[in-house]
């Protein structure tokens, strides 16, 4: 992280935090709670505070040789936290920087990015190096792009992975076979290359990758596009089970309807920051939503009004 903070991680959490009754959905230090939210050992499993991400770019609307470099802020002081046992859905405008949050949590930074803020994992303040070490050893990502698969490696071997000297290949293989069976991927698929998969199959392979490593936190960046309804429900159902067994999930998605079925809380994202964090139940009616953009999202759903007005410019 760009900013080395000396704050004691525990000092950010008020005394007695764990004892607060979460059933009443009260808001405290930037966020609300769902009934299932738990603070194991008195902290969040993942907490992001004051995250800002900017990119150093050349000015875009001036002639080539006169263009100067300048900093473009994409994410501005964002706060979000994931408790043990819950799924936090992040919904919001496309291009508002949702994927960048996922990248920041995983410690994946573009060379021209400047990142500030504080990220705690399991009560410990992380820096860029430690976030990198947590990848696949605590935090797993379901990436957004199916391009994330290695085009030159068979997908079975890819899911089994290499960076696990402590576990024999046979064990990993059996685990992979179990996961593939669960997602309706036949053993023949394990011997295929990514180009031979359909969009939905590739997506399922990516979900399997994340579930292979027994993480504490899964950051799922749009895990459902390309899946038919039944498979999408199963994939999200697995994230639910994962959360119920003591994990935390940050679910980035556009499919609000599906997200509402499994998530505990919804964070609405616009222009690089969280404009509203609300309980899932509030999405039942637009009147319960506070921010105009949340209401615009509600009205835009095809099952509601399919309205385009009132939203942010696209």
């Amino acid at each position, binding site marked *: 992280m760009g900013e080395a903070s000396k704050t004691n991680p525990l000092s950010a959490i008020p005394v007695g935090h764990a004892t607060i009754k979460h059933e009443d959905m009260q808001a405290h230090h930037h966020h609300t709670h769902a009934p299932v939210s738990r603070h194991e050992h008195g902290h969040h499993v993942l907490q992001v505070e004051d995250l800002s991400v900017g990119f150093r770019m050349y000015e*875009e609307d001036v002639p080539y040789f006169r263009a100067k470099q300048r900093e473009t802020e994409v994410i501005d002081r964002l706060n979000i936290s994931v408790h043990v046992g819950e799924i936090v859905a992040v919904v919001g405008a*496309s291009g508002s920087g949702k994927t960048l949050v996922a990248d920041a949590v995983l410690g994946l930074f573009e060379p021209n990015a400047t990142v500030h803020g504080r990220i705690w994992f399991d009560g410990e303040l992380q820096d860029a190096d430690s976030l990198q070490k947590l990848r696949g050893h605590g935090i797993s990502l379901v990436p957004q792009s199916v*391009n994330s698969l290695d085009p030159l490696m068979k997908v079975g071997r890819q899911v089994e992975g290499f960076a696990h000297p402590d576990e024999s290949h046979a064990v990993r293989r059996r685990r992979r076979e179990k996961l593939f069976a669960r997602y309706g991927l036949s053993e023949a698929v394990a011997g295929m290359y990514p180009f031979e998969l359909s969009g939905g199959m590739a997506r399922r392979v990516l979900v399997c990758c994340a579930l292979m490593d027994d993480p504490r936190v899964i950051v799922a960046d*749009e895990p459902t596009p*390309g899946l038919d309804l039944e*498979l999408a429900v199963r994939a999200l159902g697995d994230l639910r089970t994962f959360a119920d067994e003591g994990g935390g999930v940050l679910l980035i998605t556009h499919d609000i309807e599906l997200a509402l079925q499994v998530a505990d809380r919804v964070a609405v994202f616009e222009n690089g920051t969280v404009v509203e964090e609300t309980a899932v139940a509030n999405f039942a009616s637009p009147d319960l939503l506070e921010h105009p953009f949340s209401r615009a999202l509600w009205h835009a759903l095809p099952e509601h009004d399919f309205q385009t007005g009132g939203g942010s410019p696209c």
Partner: protein
Amino acid sequence: MLEARGVSFKYPGAKRLLYEGFDLAVGTDERVALTAPSGFGKTTLCRMLAGYERPQAGNVLVDGEPLPRRGTCPVQLILQHPEKAVDPRMRMRDTLAEAGEVPQRLLDDLGIQKRWLGRFPHELSGGELQRFCIARALAAHPRYLVADEISTMLDAVTQAQIWRFLVSETQACGIGVVFVSHSPALTERIATRVVDLARTE
């Protein structure tokens, strides 16, 4: 009329025929939704209709004529993964130029900002890229548009905007639409007819 007539298809090396003697006809005033489970071959059918794949038997015809082997195809495909549909080393301005002159009105309607034109694909979000792909397909003056899950990477507001725009644009220009979507609610909104591939087999 866009027709698939007695189309059979299998991928090289595959044991099973994906399609055998498959028929489909779509008029220019229709918006046909294709539904089938994941991995069934929806994308393959889309690719065949747009001339990306040639069937082993049968024909894909536009107004009785087979798809041209050269020049602009009258059936334009918008792919499921926009990041795979653009050259990663080409600026967006040049990617758009692949379809020739793109009217400014089209860019405005799709909400494509001027400052995005000088960027490379990895500097745009998935939803922003998809708008470019839609603009590129429409600028080629197609008779038919094949949309393979084009709005899954868009937020609800943008999805509504883009589909409303596509519906009015294709109606005004008399462009027939074939589309794939996993969202039943969206299908119900857009489609004039639904074809369940699993049932027609």
